[in-house]
């Protein structure tokens, strides 16, 4: 039950966020899927006792890889899918929590939370960059001349 709730919730949350970011309509479903991939892998790794930072890197890496595939398939820039995919992983809640503690004069807790938020966003960036590097190494070799046919239809 726990997993099913998280699966559905992460799908809807990512797809809804894609609407907030004005993603093209035909990509909403894929945006939801990449959100599910990221969040489920993150939860799975956490439940296996991994650190949050490592889980985030691994999850974003896979989100990035999925984004590369979607981008090839649907001829859209990768950013559309990766942005939607990392939304559940982004430490927005932590950043907010840290700021709240600062404003409430609980500096020790606030600095801890802020450091954690910074590390997590750094690891998201690392995961995305890793997947991009991999994509460039593997995919760039194929010549890309498919778009011409699509234009004529």
């Amino acid at each position: 039950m726990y997993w099913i709730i998280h699966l559905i919730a992460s799908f809807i949350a990512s797809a809804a966020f894609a609407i907030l970011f004005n993603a093209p309509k035909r990509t909403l479903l894929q945006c939801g899927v990449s959100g599910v991939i990221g969040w489920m892998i993150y939860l799975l790794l956490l439940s296996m006792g991994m650190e949050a930072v490592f889980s985030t890197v691994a999850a974003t890496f896979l989100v990035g890889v999925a984004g590369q595939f979607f981008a090839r398939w649907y001829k859209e820039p990768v950013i559309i899918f990766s942005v939607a995919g990392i939304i559940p992983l982004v430490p927005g809640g932590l950043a907010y929590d840290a700021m709240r503690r600062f404003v409430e004069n609980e500096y020790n807790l606030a600095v801890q939370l802020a450091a954690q938020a910074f590390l997590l966003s750094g690891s998201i960036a690392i995961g995305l960059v890793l997947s991009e590097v991999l994509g460039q190494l593997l995919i760039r070799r194929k010549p890309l001349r498919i778009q011409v046919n699509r234009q004529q239809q």
Partner: protein
Amino acid sequence: MNDEAALQVQEPVQVCLLAGKIMLQSGAETYRVEDTMTRMADALGLHGADSFVTPTGILFQSGEADSAKLIRIVARTTDLQKVSAVNNVSRKLGNGEMTSEEAYAELLEIERVKPAYPMSMQIAAAAISSGCFTLMFRGSLADFLPGIVCGGLGFAAFLLLHRLVKVKFFAEFIASLLIGLLAVLLVELHIGRMLDKVIIGSVMPLVPGLLITNAVRDLMAGHLVSGLSRGAEAFLTAFAIGAGVAVVFTLL
């Protein structure tokens, strides 16, 4: 003759600048903007073009002999549709399927187009995602409904205020204040159970998570100025939201 030659250079430069401006205003990463502009310049025959992009402005020079052009960026949102559309234009230019005039006309059209989703749909999306985030942050099922209500109303308030007052910081502050008040009210009425989860879920549509991540990515890609200024923007937004909610907690 001289004027004509100047006009011929002018047009490709305008195309590149407009493309960069639209992309930057729509929340594309700095390196992607620079990359797209350089590629378009290459396709338009401006070899050796150089650009310097920061979140608040673009400097673009088409060649050694020409003067540099500047475009100021005032407002930034996230609009992936426009990023995708500009990307398409750039690719067509690169494949030689489009002339510079056609590209310019299409870019003007892209800039003019309104968001694909009406405001009511955006608010609904914010509401639903807030509800889902309360669940994902381990809130109980009872917190789903308060999350939807607070998130939707908070985001609606943010959009409305941002239209009235152009200061984004202020709109975020008031919106999160409202979210806090509403969440406390709903929990007092026993409609929601965990106050913290409801508030965190509901502020998620406002929170600058994407900005933070983009800032770190820009820093890693070597765009130090852009990374730091995006980080500052993210910090201010997070501060506004945190302060708004904290005011509620200190009042009670």
